[in-house]
């Protein structure tokens, strides 16, 4: 026991992924703001030749925030939470330390190569699956390394029971592994038919089948990257920061199995009114509506965890970030099912309401939860108090304003757009041409871009606060049990 008394958790890999989260967050969000302004002011497309066009930058934004910012956030929290809930230090296994470091460096190399490749316009043109086959193989390698790290740590744990967050991290690992492999089955054209460059490929599926696999993947990327690991985070960080045990552990288990079962069938809602079989569309629609139950199961469980402790919202901005994240999770998991209802989708499909929906989930739920998690980890990893509570409060309100501007402008733009597309005169002719809708929407695009800019400003405030916490904040002697210490 002597040796164990001197033992500490090893956060070196978690720290590396924290830096990556911040770096890719800045890259992904700056590009996001640029392309949002391009929608409002099209001349901005010509700032940097082909490299600055919307079509070149859009996959960079999505891949940058999903696979750069968020994935590294997930890995950072895993290398922090995993050790703590299993009560075992990575330092106890030199093998796992090597795996963790290798995981980080291969990840960095892969994502930085992806940034270069997408800037050069090298991609498969499959949404959220743009990377060409050599990079796909690198993704598989880094994913396997993460798996070794997860199951390796589980293998040497002291805590017999896996805490609910662990279930969600494991589900993220297994879910993405399955989805990524099946959707990225591709034929390298140069090696098979002597066509194209060595890195080019085409999908192994064709036509409608390709679309079905793609949206089974696409929507479940939302499930297993935007939802499942973020629930893993909130189930750990909210109780820990507030000092309150999860309201109902049984409800967390029931919600877990509900979410796992239902999510996998919902992707068909991306293909409503297309050439896929009607039953696939109906199934996608129905499962999307049922999805409200397990989603709200987790979200309500989190809100009830704060029962009798709502005063903490006033005192602790981190709790505020997390409660707000949970509330936005409820909003977006109600909005999504509504959009998936066939008759609503007839209006909403292909309109700006869809990116509006995506962003109230990603900015409100995913972004806030990830930043709150890193804020909570910082004093424990760097043994310093958080640099500025005031800055955190201002960040919260600036970003919240940004989110509200983003989704409210997109609601109005989307519904306007949908209604104009469907409007007909008394003879059944379309009342508006496409360019009429574009002209009407321009003010909303400017509002949306400004909302995004506010969120980006908040992210820079977060970066500054984290940087100062790491380098200049007051040192703390012992690790805080619950509420993170912060200077005014």
């Amino acid at each position, binding site marked *: 026991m002597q040796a164990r008394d001197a033992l500490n958790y090893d956060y070196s890999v978690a720290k590396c992924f924290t830096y990556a989260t911040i770096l890719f967050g800045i890259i992904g969000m700056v590009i996001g703001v640029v392309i949002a302004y391009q929608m409002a002011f099209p001349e901005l497309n010509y700032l940097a030749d082909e490299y600055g066009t919307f079509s070149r930058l859009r996959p960079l934004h999505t891949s940058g925030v999903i696979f750069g910012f968020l994935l590294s956030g997930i890995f950072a929290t895993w290398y922090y939470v995993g050790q703590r*809930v299993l*009560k075992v230090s990575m330092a106890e296994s030199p093998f796992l330390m090597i795996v963790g470091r290798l995981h980080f460096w291969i990840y960095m190399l892969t994502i930085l190569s992806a940034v270069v490749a997408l800037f050069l316009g090298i991609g498969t043109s499959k949404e959220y699956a743009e990377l060409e086959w050599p990079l796909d193989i690198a993704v598989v390698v880094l994913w396997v390394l993460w798996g070794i790290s997860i199951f390796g740590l589980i293998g040497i744990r002291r805590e*017999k029971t896996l*805490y*609910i967050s662990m279930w969600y991290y494991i589900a993220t690992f297994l879910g993405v592994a399955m989805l990524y492999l099946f959707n990225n089955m591709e034929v390298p054209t140069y090696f098979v038919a002597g066509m194209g460059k060595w890195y080019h490929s085409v999908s192994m599926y064709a036509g409608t089948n390709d679309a079905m696999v793609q949206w089974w993947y696409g929507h479940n990327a939302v499930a297993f990257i935007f939802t499942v690991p973020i629930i893993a985070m909130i189930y750990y960080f909210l109780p820990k920061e507030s000092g309150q*045990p999860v309201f109902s552990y049984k409800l967390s*288990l*029931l919600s877990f199995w509900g979410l796992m079962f239902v999510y996998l069938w919902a992707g068909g809602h991306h293909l409503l009114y297309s050439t896929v079989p009607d039953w696939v569309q109906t199934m996608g629609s129905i499962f999307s509506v049922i999805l409200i139950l397990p989603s709200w199961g987790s979200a309500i469980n989190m809100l009830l965890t704060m029962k009798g402790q709502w005063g903490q919202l006033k005192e602790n901005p981190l709790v505020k970030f997390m409660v707000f994240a949970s509330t936005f999770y409820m909003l977006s998991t109600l909005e999504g099912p509504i959009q998936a209802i066939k008759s609503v989708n007839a209006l909403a499909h292909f309109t700006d309401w869809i990116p509006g929906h995506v962003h109230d989930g990603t900015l409100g739920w995913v972004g806030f939860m990830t930043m709150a998690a890193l804020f909570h980890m910082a004093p424990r990893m760097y043994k310093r108090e958080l640099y500025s509570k005031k800055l955190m409060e201002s960040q919260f309100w600036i970003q919240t304003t940004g989110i509200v501007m983003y989704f409210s402008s997109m609601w109005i733009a989307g519904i306007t757009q949908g209604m104009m597309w469907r409007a007909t005169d008394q003879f059944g002719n379309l009342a508006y041409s496409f360019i009429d809708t574009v002209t009407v929407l321009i003010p909303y695009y400017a509002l949306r871009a400004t909302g995004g800019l506010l969120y980006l400003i908040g992210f820079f405030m977060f970066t500054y606060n984290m940087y100062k916490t790491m380098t200049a904040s007051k040192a703390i002697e012992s690790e805080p049990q619950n509420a993170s210490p912060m200077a005014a």
Partner: protein
Amino acid sequence: MDIETIRELQAYGYIFATIFLSVIMYSYLYHLYKAEKKGTRNYEKYANIALNDNIDDAPIESFTPSNKEKE
């Protein structure tokens, strides 16, 4: 097989699947509560895994007999 038969089979499939899945879900819920009532498991105590997560804290449920004594 004609389209009417296919539709009929789909409808039966749908109703049986719905009943089956509802039974599974409620059985799981029943299992959780029954295990707690019988005292075989206390699920709610696992919530403390997140709260008492220092490396020196005694595990909520541990593998080794030496740690078991601590509980």
